[in-house]
């Protein structure tokens, strides 16, 4: 980044009494003239406008005055003038400007006016509109082409939709110059200057075989020479309320749950569990009571009373009280920077403390960075950057242990965790009778008190991350516009995770009790001695990158040439080690030697098992070697042609050397119509057409051309080292390839409106996809370069900007259309059952969307018994097996399960020093499957519970107003699967969301070249849904049942001294 400050040039003095000619030139940071800028003399009020070459001038009686310069798309600026002669005013792009920032591709800085590719740059102002501990989550809702899939509770970013089916989907992330292998969470957002998204082939193909998913280049803040010392401090706080557990539909309130249990009890569902005297599976308190009543130990009246008491308990209230808390994130940042003519530096430090929603969980991060530039010689510059990150997170795992065990994956809803704030035990893993009798048989106490464990912190694990990055580069300017650069980066990360299970924790007591043998009726011999269990795992990352690059930058009259070429090598080695210590005493570091080789009798099941070992070692090493070039020629500032090529090689295992080298290339053309003489520049100050074409690649690490095996240590019973066959060899294996064609138009209109519209087509070929195999071959499927995807879309961004008196209004509208369809895919199985579902994973069928949503046709409920009905050969049918096995084309195809149209509409209104900004987002053209009731899972492991149980069919006539099938016993898993995957559980996903509201106050005090700037803001995030197409009141972004995000409230302040 070149100079960001305005400069005034010294000129000879003139006398003060005569009228003085003030002449100047307005230019942008690329040294291009800014036409149409308004120049005002503050004291005299005289005004003029700069011409096409950016020149302006006036006569004034005052020598010392302040010149204010404003222009569309640029930040207004004030220049104190006490000089005569030519004043050069450098205008900085305003935050709402699309394309006037220089583009960092990771290899070079491109002037947007001379590029052909598709880039989106998010500048510092826009990045700081949101507040978050990490940087990537700030991109959503403000970045054209970028979408985030949160359906699985993850944060999967994609740029211009999917380019692959089963290989890595994440965009390549570049930090300044090199791919970033560390934890993206650990980058301090306050150190980030801007983010550039490389979208088409001309932009991304320079990154070669890892660029098909798009490239996100994160540029950290840099300083320039001749800059006064500056300190900036900032701090912000974000608060959000406890999550609303009542929003989760996958729950059955206690009374209804007991109703189901009574039903099952009467059917004999629990008989074998109740009479089981070997494994002693857990039985819920309600079922215990029913058994007591059946054996005559309590009366029916007592039973009903006890069940009514249980019904009044709701685990959600208790979890909310004890296990959840409002979250509070605090962030502090400090930066010091400055520079002389030979040296500049920036020091930054940050501290984050996040308290999350779960009690006991927290995250702290400390970051420090130092970067400096030395001009060793007039043409030799040495840059060094050093970064240190220390992060630690504490996780309390008690919440995840609150499930009943045995076959039950969750807990009964009437579990009482506390009474008068005193922790209570819950049923866990075994019959209560066994737990109680164990006390007198020499076992350790076998009860599980979740709240006690939470309060004592018995289940906490700590993971830390120490990361350091050193980068050094030498840039040498040679004659004839040549320059050479040598870059080297070392990245080290040490991430230890430690969890000490307290000796009184249930997990330890359970383990000790299970591995114990009766000594006498009242004593046990313990194989594992009571004591804490310390588990630790460490992962180390060692990455090194080296790059040598030659650049040629020269202007020959009307021809501007820019060529870079270079080579780089990169190695990332990850080592992971885990270990376990039994009987660990944290006071003196002693531990118990455990026999991991022998099998011991397990109580009460009587099986034999070895003591869980938990030792592991892993080492991976990825190496890449690449050579690349990128060239562009611009003629008369009108026509630009560009080309790039790259070759990659890697040690990807098993791939033949000839396959390792994959040439990827791109070509592009841009035409600035607004520069043509025949073009009327008054209405379109800028109009530029771009066309590019090229190829990028994608890698899947675990496919190989030869048979590979994975070794494992310690086979059960023998202890032998053994190996698993990974995949059948495929000598045809190739890397995935994406071809992109991009047509773009950049324009500005009447100085108010500017924007970019792009149309693209994508063709992904040679995609690795599991191809089902004849199971007689011994394999069910294998990965082959078998599939291809075809996609197209539009990225549109419109910016409007208006100044009216003291009001400043700006608006930004983002619209994306992205439609990726399966072009080629081998489906050996065309049976309906393999296509229905929620399409949270890719669901490829030729001609359909990648995330294709299919349903069984729904014919309502049987009016006699409430069975769900479908269609088989156009006849209403209950033959679920036949419908499962029917052809996929018998299903209803709804469309995409991810938005086809999406975007945001952002408005900002400024008045004096105040600004208010809101962001509305929308997602359209898609469907989702809501969660629903599954009787099989409800009966067997309680996980199939759902609020719609209350709406189930119970008597003839109910079929007129419900789609929820009746409860039957035995439950039929195919009947459940039919209902859950039928048209009855499909909803339209379209919605408009009030994403956020931001109020800010800005104060800029100008004091002779030293700006003092303060900004304070208040932000509300995740405000709510304004409109939704579904009638069920569901949040389509959280359709799989994950709780919607709570509203976040943030305040912050930032001061530059």
């Amino acid at each position: 980044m070149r100079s960001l400050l305005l400069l005034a040039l010294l000129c000879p003095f003139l006398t003060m009494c005569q009228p003085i000619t003030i002449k100047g030139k307005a230019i942008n940071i690329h040294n291009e003239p800014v036409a149409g800028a308004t120049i005002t003399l503050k004291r005299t009020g005289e005004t003029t406008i700069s011409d096409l070459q950016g020149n302006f001038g006036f006569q004034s009686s005052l020598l010392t005055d302040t010149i204010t310069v404003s222009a569309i798309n640029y930040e207004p600026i004030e220049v104190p003038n006490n000089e005569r002669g030519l004043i050069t005013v450098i205008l900085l792009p305003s935050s709402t400007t699309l394309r006037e920032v220089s583009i960092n591709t990771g290899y070079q800085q491109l002037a947007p006016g001379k590029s052909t590719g598709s880039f989106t740059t998010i500048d510092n102002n826009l990045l700081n509109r949101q507040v978050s501990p990490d940087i990537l989550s700030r991109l959503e809702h403000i970045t054209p082409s970028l979408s985030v899939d949160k359906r699985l509770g993850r944060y999967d970013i994609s740029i211009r939709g999917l380019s692959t089916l089963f290989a890595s989907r994440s965009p390549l992330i570049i930090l300044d110059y090199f791919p970033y292998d560390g934890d993206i969470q650990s980058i301090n957002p306050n150190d980030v200057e801007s983010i550039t998204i490389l979208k088409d082939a001309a932009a991304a193909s320079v990154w070669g075989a890892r660029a098909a998913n798009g490239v996100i280049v994160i540029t950290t803040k840099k300083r320039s020479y001749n800059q006064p010392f500056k300190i900036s401090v900032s701090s912000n706080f974000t608060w959000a309320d406890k999550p609303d557990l009542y929003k989760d539909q996958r729950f059955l309130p206690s009374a209804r749950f007991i109703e189901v249990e009574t039903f099952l009890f009467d059917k004999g569902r629990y008989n074998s569990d109740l009479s089981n005297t070997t494994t002693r599976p857990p039985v819920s308190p309600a079922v215990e009571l029913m058994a007591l009543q059946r054996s005559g130990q309590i009366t029916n009246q007592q039973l009903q009373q006890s069940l009514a008491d249980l019904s009044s308990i709701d685990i959600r209230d208790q979890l909310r009280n004890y296990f959840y808390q409002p979250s509070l994130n605090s962030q502090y940042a400090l930066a010091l920077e400055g520079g002389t003519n030979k040296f500049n530096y920036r020091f930054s430090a940050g501290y984050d403390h996040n308290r999350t929603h779960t009690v006991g969980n927290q995250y702290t991060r400390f970051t420090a960075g130092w970067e400096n530039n030395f001009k060793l010689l007039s043409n030799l510059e040495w840059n060094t950057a050093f970064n240190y990150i220390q992060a630690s997170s504490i996780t309390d795992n008690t919440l995840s242990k609150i499930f009943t065990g045995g076959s039950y994956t969750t807990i009964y809803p009437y579990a009482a965790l506390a009474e008068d704030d005193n922790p209570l035990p819950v049923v866990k893993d075994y019959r209560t009778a066994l737990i109680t009798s164990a006390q007198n048989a020499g076992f350790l106490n076998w009860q599980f008190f979740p709240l006690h464990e939470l309060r004592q912190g018995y289940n906490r694990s700590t993971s830390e991350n120490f990361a350091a990055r050193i980068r050094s580069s030498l840039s040498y300017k040679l004659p004839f516009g040549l320059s050479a650069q040598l870059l080297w980066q070392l990245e080290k990360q040490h991430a230890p995770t430690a969890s000490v299970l307290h000796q009184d924790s249930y997990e330890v007591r359970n383990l000790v009790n299970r591995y114990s043998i009766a000594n006498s009726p009242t004593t046990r011999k313990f194989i594992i001695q009571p004591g804490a269990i310390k588990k630790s795992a460490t992962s180390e990352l060692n990455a090194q990158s080296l790059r040598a690059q030659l650049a040629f930058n020269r202007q020959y009259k009307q021809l501007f040439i820019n060529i870079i070429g270079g080579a780089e090598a990169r190695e990332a080695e990850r080592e992971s080690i885990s270990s376990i210590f039994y009987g660990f005493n944290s006071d003196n570091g002693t531990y118990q030697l455990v026999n991991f080789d022998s099998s011991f009798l397990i109580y009460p099941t009587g099986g034999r098992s070895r003591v869980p070992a938990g030792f592991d070692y892993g080492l991976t090493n990825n190496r890449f070697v690449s050579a690349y070039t990128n060239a562009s020629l611009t003629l008369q500032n009108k026509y630009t042609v560009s080309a790039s090529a790259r070759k990659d090689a890697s040690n990807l295992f098993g791939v033949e050397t000839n396959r390792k080298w994959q040439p990827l290339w791109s070509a592009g053309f841009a035409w600035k119509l607004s520069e043509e003489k025949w073009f009327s520049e008054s209405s379109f100050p800028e109009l530029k057409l771009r066309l590019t074409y090229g190829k990028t690649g994608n890698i899947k690490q675990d496919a190989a051309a030869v048979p590979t095996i994975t070794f494992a240590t310690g086979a059960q019973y023998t202890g032998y080292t053994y190996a698993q066959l990974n995949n059948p060899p495929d000598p045809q294996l190739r890397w995935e390839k994406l071809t992109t064609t991009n047509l773009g138009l950049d324009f500005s209109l009447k100085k108010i409106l500017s924007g970019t519209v792009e149309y693209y087509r994508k063709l992904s070929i040679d995609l690795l996809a599991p191809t089902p195999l004849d199971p007689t071959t011994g394999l069910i499927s294998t990965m082959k370069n078998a599939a291809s995807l075809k996609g197209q879309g539009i990225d549109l961004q419109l910016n409007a900007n208006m100044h009216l008196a003291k009001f400043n209004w700006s608006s930004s509208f983002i619209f994306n259309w992205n439609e990726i369809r399966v072009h080629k895919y081998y489906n050996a199985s065309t049976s309906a059952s393999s296509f229905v579902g929620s399409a949270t994973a890719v669901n490829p069928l030729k001609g359909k969307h990648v995330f294709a949503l299919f349903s069984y046709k729904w014919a309502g409920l049987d009016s006699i018994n409430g069975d769900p009905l479908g269609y088989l050969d156009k006849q209403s049918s209950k033959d679920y097996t036949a419908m499962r096995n029917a052809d996929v084309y018998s299903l209803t195809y709804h469309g995409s399960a991810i938005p086809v149209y999406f975007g945001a509409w952002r408005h900002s209104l400024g008045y004096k020093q105040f600004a208010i900004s809101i962001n509305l987002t929308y997602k359209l053209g898609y469907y989702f499957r809501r969660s629903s009731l599954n009787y099989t899972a409800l009966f067997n492991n309680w996980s199939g519970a759902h609020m719609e149980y209350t709406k189930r069919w119970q008597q003839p006539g109910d079929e007129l107003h419900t789609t929820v099938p009746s409860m039957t016993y035995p439950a039929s898993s195919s009947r459940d699967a039919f209902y859950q995957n039928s048209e009855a559980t499909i909803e339209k996903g379209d919605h408009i969301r009030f994403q956020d509201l931001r109020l800010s106050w800005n104060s800029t005090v100008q004091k002779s070249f030293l700006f003092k700037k303060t900004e304070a803001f208040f932000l509300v995030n995740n405000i709510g849904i304004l409109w939704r197409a579904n009638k069920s009141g569901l949040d389509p972004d959280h359709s799989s049942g994950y709780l919607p995000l709570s509203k976040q409230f943030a305040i912050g302040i930032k001061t530059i001294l």
Partner: protein
Amino acid sequence: MKRNVLILLSLFIIIVSCNKDWLDKKPDISLAVPSRLDDLLALLDNPAMNSSYPTALEIAATDYYVTYADWAARSDDDRENYIWHQNAQYSNNWSQPYNKILVANLVLEQLQKITSSPVDTALYNYIKGAAHFYRGFTYYLLSQAYCPPYDAASDNPYGLPLRTTSDFNQPSARSTVVETYDFIINDFKTALKYLPLTNRYPSRPAKPAVYAALARVFLCIEQYEWAGRYADSCLLIYNTLVNYNTLNAAATNPFVVFNPEVIFHAQSVTSAIFNPARTKVDSVLFNSYHTNDLRKTVFFRNNNNGTYTFKATYTGQTGGSIFHGLATDEIYLVRAEAFARSGNTAEAMNDLNTLLIKRWKTGTFIPFSASTPQQALDLILLERRKQLCFRGLRWTDLRRLNKDPRYAQTLTRVLDNGTSVETYTLAPNDPRYTFMIPEEAIILGGIPQNPR
């Protein structure tokens, strides 16, 4: 620093110029191309090679029953197999055994590329023999589920697809039943040439395992003379029997993993229907044990409600899967049957009594006697049923003995849901004695389905 940079630059140039070697680094330490003998050995030592054998063989046999409530709570596959539904099929009962065949084929292919040196001949021979053994053993168990019973007189086109390559592009085709058995016997005979006399753990096959397997195969195809000879060869090398008086009958499972009778360890796919809490032993079977017969308490647990549960699988584990492996008790019974069928009553009864004296309470056993080979055979078949229950062998025995009117029997299953009683029967030689091949294999492999 400048010097460092220069050094780095030159390193870089070296790296780039000889990147072929630099790029040969393994991307993951635990990965390997199976090219060394140790790699092949590790593939065969995978516990998966000793587990995941077909479970349908026992589910459909009538050593046990479950209550309606327990039956209703099981998977569709378990439920259908339990009542011999004519379309009952188990996809993992097919694909998982064939995965073992793939590993064996891959090992044999890779082995051809390795020349053994005098130092590692023993290892090389073991691998070669073991690969043949695993392949033969897996094909044998598959044949019991998916091929019609053997009939030397009239061959039958519904043999197994016999794959001998790891190349998944090669199509599958069904062989005849005779071809299938010939292939199995050949694999075992090859294994015999290469395997050692003993191994430390019975998870690895040795010569006694091959002899035992051959004895089992020849018994199955009713070539009793050969069955007897191979059983004899096995017992010459290894004949340890466990004295049940030394066991703790109260234990959840009185047998440990690799108990001394186990010659080769193999177990089935885990099935929830075999959970000891659910499986109730057939009452006729239970009542056939004498009070002094220790098997009555070692094998079964009293549920204290008039029913009994089988708990004593030779897998040494508790429930879920059954023992499909080879053990000396079975081989004594094979030899005894072979003696009886050849008219040698004395030797037959001698083998039977050698086994049974270790099964009865010390001092209570009065040796059985028989005056005719027929009497001996009746006794041996009864004891075979009592000793080898829940071993996946009954299905094969039913298929074999149903051809003989003396021993043919109709199986019955009863499901009582409280309001109605459903009875299912399986007549001798019913086509349902051969399971349906999973639909995927029929569609993707293009092979014909078993007839119904």
